[in-house]
């Protein structure tokens, strides 16, 4: 598929670039029943999952007799009732780069919270009661909770041979995915460098914590087709995976995505839909399953925790000449996104500072802990924490301004990124050329906004103040893999239906895509009626992930709208006797070269009733490029030297996401990402005890930021128009989540002179580090 040149300028219509109100906003502020669980079909059953209490055990026998005797219980299924078809629950393009290591109901549980059985009952209460009535006999197996141990041991295998398809270590060890890529001569360059800095960084397990839990309802329509209404980011991938595990053709399945209460990657996965689908097929009744918050924190997906060893060679003038990143990552019990998240930790991160010598190594292992998967940033927040901490260490050792080291080394327009060529979605990727970059300007404007280099006083005697910076880049979709389609259809009144597979999960893609459509057709936004993500009604889209929607789906919308415009121009050209190219569409009118014009309603009536044709177009779009958006983020923090508490006072994000189709929605993406990353930096961590149980499965113990926690946020859009993006757009959803943790930790180091290399920087950790520093200072003084 060729990539046509997209429209460069927004032109006179002014819909692109405007802070248009969300197209779904009115229903949301009115609290209308627009989410999955808000409407229940007649006669619906309630499902519950019996979760494993053990980290690693074989299920010898399940006796459901007592549960089935419960008057409210309709069905109980366990592994003996379901054909074991290997698959991955990760919602990725086919063929998925994640290992096929999962069955619907496993014969062996691999983490506390893994599926043992599933119940359908007439009431939720009956389903809950039934769980206690299922008798399970387990044969306990030794559990591996620690990734280092998992890497060492081959006597205990979490996924044993015969080899489930696509596991990195072939099922002979506990390696789920392995990557090793070399560019240039790292050893030689390190030996020749003036300074070599090596540090080990640890990043924690965190959870997306979208407020709407995973929830799905499945039923059979009057023709016996399976309908699944679900809170998902990937309706089309989901339909394909369901077809595989249920052994029914895609044609017999319809997936509907209503409004979604946040996803952040955690819904880029079939977390529960197979269970409701299976129960609906078995019982013939509608079945609903919603996870509780505790289940979310235990059995949804976590961000992969990693240990990152970063070795950097630098010359005295600050030039980075070699980088070696060695990652040990924990994918938990199953390998969802194991290869690709970890691949991103290098691929999205190391190119920020192009240097000829790179070595990127990953061991991603299984452990008997909850499953890790996609979470906004997808490996990049981990890598950027290491890289951007490291740059500050280097600057300190060289006695340079950390901003100067970054300015000297960062990637620029016209440069290519050697890792992308070697690492795609698990196959070889495409060479990435930076065609647009506002990074230099973002650094300048962000530094100005935070007051870089200006000493400021702490607000109390026991506080110390510091400034920190971090840069980041991401991508816009997956080059050569992600693609999307859109259909535009004209109605009598000159309005259009825009049908997109793209998945609005709260980020506002329906609105942004409608803006692109309206702009291209010269219509006001109110004349674009959006329908998204219904596999029966809308064309395909890979879904909402990898920061792809505005860039990739937006490209499809722009093409479809242009095609429609071309159809209308052809009809009018025949009527007016002029060239089709000479007809312009703006302000809801079509204008001929001689000044003749028709309103869009008249154009529609002409097409529908005179030409007797339905103007409509479907277009597909794929890009072999994934232009990086850039961010420069700055933190102003105070550290309490008595308690180790860190207070972020002000946080500046200067972001180049290309032209913002809707600046207000873009700012919202940035502000929300900073809030999530603030937790990553300072207080979020899923804690696992020595039995593999999650210790903090609730919002009291797993903290996410409240309105009180948020500092003053300054958000600056620094657009560098992207020549390959619709109206110059790139992505915005993920890049702002990459920088806050390193920026805040760099600010802590600036304030109190201690470098915390393990997230989150809790008061205990900061206090401990302060104490050790005090001891060291004392020792060196004496």
């Amino acid at each position, binding site marked *: 598929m060729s990539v046509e040149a997209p429209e460069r300028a927004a032109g006179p219509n002014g819909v692109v670039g405007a*802070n248009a*109100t*969300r197209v779904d*906003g*009115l229903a949301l*502020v*009115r*609290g209308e029943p*627009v*989410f999955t*669980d808000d409407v229940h079909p007649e006669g619906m059953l309630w499902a519950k999952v019996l979760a494993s209490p053990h980290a690693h055990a074989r299920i010898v026998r399940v006796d459901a007799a007592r549960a089935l005797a419960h008057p409210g219980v309709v069905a109980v299924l366990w592994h003996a009732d379901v054909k074991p078809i290997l698959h991955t629950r990760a919602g990725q393009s086919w063929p998925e780069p994640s290992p096929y290591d999962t069955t619907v109901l496993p014969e062996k549980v691999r983490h506390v919270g893994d599926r043992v059985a599933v119940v359908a009952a007439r009431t*939720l209460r009956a389903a809950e009661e039934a769980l206690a009535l299922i008798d399970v006999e387990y044969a306990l197996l030794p559990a591996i909770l620690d990734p280092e141990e998992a890497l060492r041991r081959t006597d205990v295998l979490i996924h044993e041979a015969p080899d489930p398809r696509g596991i990195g270590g072939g099922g002979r060890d506990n390696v789920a995915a392995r990557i090793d890529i070399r560019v240039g001569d790292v050893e030689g360059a390190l030996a020749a460098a003036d300074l070599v800095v090596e540090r080990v960084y640890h990043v924690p397990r965190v959870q997306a914590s*979208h*407020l709407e*839990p995973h929830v799905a309802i499945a039923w059979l329509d009057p023709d016996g087709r399976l309908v699944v209404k679900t809170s998902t980011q990937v309706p089309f991938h989901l339909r394909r995976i369901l077809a595989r595990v249920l052994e029914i053709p895609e044609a017999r399945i319809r997936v509907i995505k209503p*409004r979604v*209460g*946040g996803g952040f990657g955690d819904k880029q996965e079939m977390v529960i839909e197979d269970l409701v689908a299976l129960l609906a097929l078995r019982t013939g009744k509608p079945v609903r399953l919603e996870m509780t*918050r505790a289940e979310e924190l235990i059995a949804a997906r976590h961000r992969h925790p990693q240990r990152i060893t970063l070795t950097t060679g630098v010359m005295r003038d600050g030039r980075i000449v070699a980088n070696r990143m060695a990652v040990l990552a924990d994918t938990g019990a199953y390998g969802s996104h194991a290869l690709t998240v970890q691949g991103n930790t290098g691929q999205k991160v190391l190119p920020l500072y192009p240097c000829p010598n790179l070595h990127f190594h990953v061991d991603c292992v299984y452990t008997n802990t909850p499953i890790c998967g996609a979470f906004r940033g997808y490996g990049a927040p981990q890598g950027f924490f290491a890289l951007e901490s490291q740059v500050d260490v280097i600057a300190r050792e060289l006695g340079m301004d950390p901003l100067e080291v970054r300015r000297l080394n960062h990637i620029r327009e016209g440069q290519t990124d050697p890792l992308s060529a070697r690492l795609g979605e698990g196959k070889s990727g495409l060479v990435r050329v930076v065609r647009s970059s506002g990074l230099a300007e973002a650094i300048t404007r962000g530094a100005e906004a935070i*007051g870089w280099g200006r*000493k*400021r*006083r*702490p*607000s*109390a005697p*026991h*506080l110390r103040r510091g400034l920190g910076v971090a840069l980041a880049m991401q991508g816009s979709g997956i080059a050569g893999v992600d693609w999307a389609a859109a259909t535009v259809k004209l109605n009598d009144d000159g309005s259009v239906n825009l049908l997109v597979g793209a998945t609005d999960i*709260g*980020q506002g893609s329906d609105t942004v895509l409608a803006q692109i459509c309206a702009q291209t057709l010269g219509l006001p936004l109110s004349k674009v009626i959006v329908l998204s993500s219904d596999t029966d009604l809308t064309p395909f889209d890979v879904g909402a992930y990898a920061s792809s929607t505005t860039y990739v789906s937006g490209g499809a919308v722009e093409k479809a709208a242009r095609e429609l415009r071309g159809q209308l121009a052809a009809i009018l050209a025949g009527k007016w006797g002029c060239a089709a190219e000479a007809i312009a569409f703006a302000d809801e009118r079509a204008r001929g070269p001689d000044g003749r014009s028709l309103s869009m309603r008249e154009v529609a009536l002409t097409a529908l009733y005179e030409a007797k044709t339905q103007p409509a177009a479907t277009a597909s779009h794929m890009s072999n490029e994934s232009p990086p958006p850039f961010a420069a983020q700055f933190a102003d923090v105070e550290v309490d030297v*008595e*308690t180790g*508490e*860190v*207070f972020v006072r*002000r946080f500046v994000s200067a972001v180049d996401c290309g032209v913002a189709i809707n600046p*207000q*929605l873009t*700012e*919202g993406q940035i*502000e*929300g*990402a900073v809030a999530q990353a603030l937790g990553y930096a*300072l207080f*979020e961590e899923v804690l696992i005890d020595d039995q593999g149980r999650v210790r903090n499965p*609730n*919002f*009291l113990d797993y*903290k996410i*930021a*409240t*309105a*009180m*926690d*948020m*500092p*003053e*946020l300054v*958000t600056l859009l620094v657009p560098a128009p992207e020549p390959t993006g619709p109206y110059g757009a790139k992505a915005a959803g993920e890049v702002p989540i990459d920088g806050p943790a390193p920026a805040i930790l760099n600010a802590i180091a600036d304030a109190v002179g201690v470098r915390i290399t393990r997230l989150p920087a809790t*008061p205990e950790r900061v206090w401990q580090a302060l104490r050790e520093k005090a001891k060291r200072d004392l020792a060196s003084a004496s």
Partner: protein
Amino acid sequence: MKVELTVNGAPVAWEIAPGDRLLDSLRAHGCASVKRGCETGDCGCCTILLDGEPAASCVVATAAARGRNVVTLEGLRGDPLLARLQEAFLAEGAVQCGYCTPALLLVAWTLLQSGGPVDEATARHALSGSLCRCTGYVKPLRALLAVAGRPGAQLRGGRGENGLRGRPAAAPRGEERP
């Protein structure tokens, strides 16, 4: 068992089971704006007004609401203050996924309805019991302050509790600017 209460101005008599929570009862009776986010009283998505005060309906037994007055967002339809808040939320871009939105609107409405002075600190405090994972709270706060007569207010940030909710902050915010 039967329980009688007032929901959105109308007396209702519901057949309930002992242990039913108000959140589930309300949702089962058409109040879809009351959302389930945690069921432990920690997220605020299920906020309602119970005798005029914001309360987490997931930790209220329906039986305990006997004889009491419950208002959800559905019950404020047509209220001019709510309408202004809804408009401000849309205009300021305070809605992303919208799952927290009914609760944020209700607590904002309660704050403004009380008639006291509203500034950033009171607004943050009012919203502090309601989690939002999407917005970082900037735009919801701006919307609230706009309706409170402070459009375009520059937000200075919260105290920074770092998830240590309920603990007093170590120090007041530094006010100086270089």
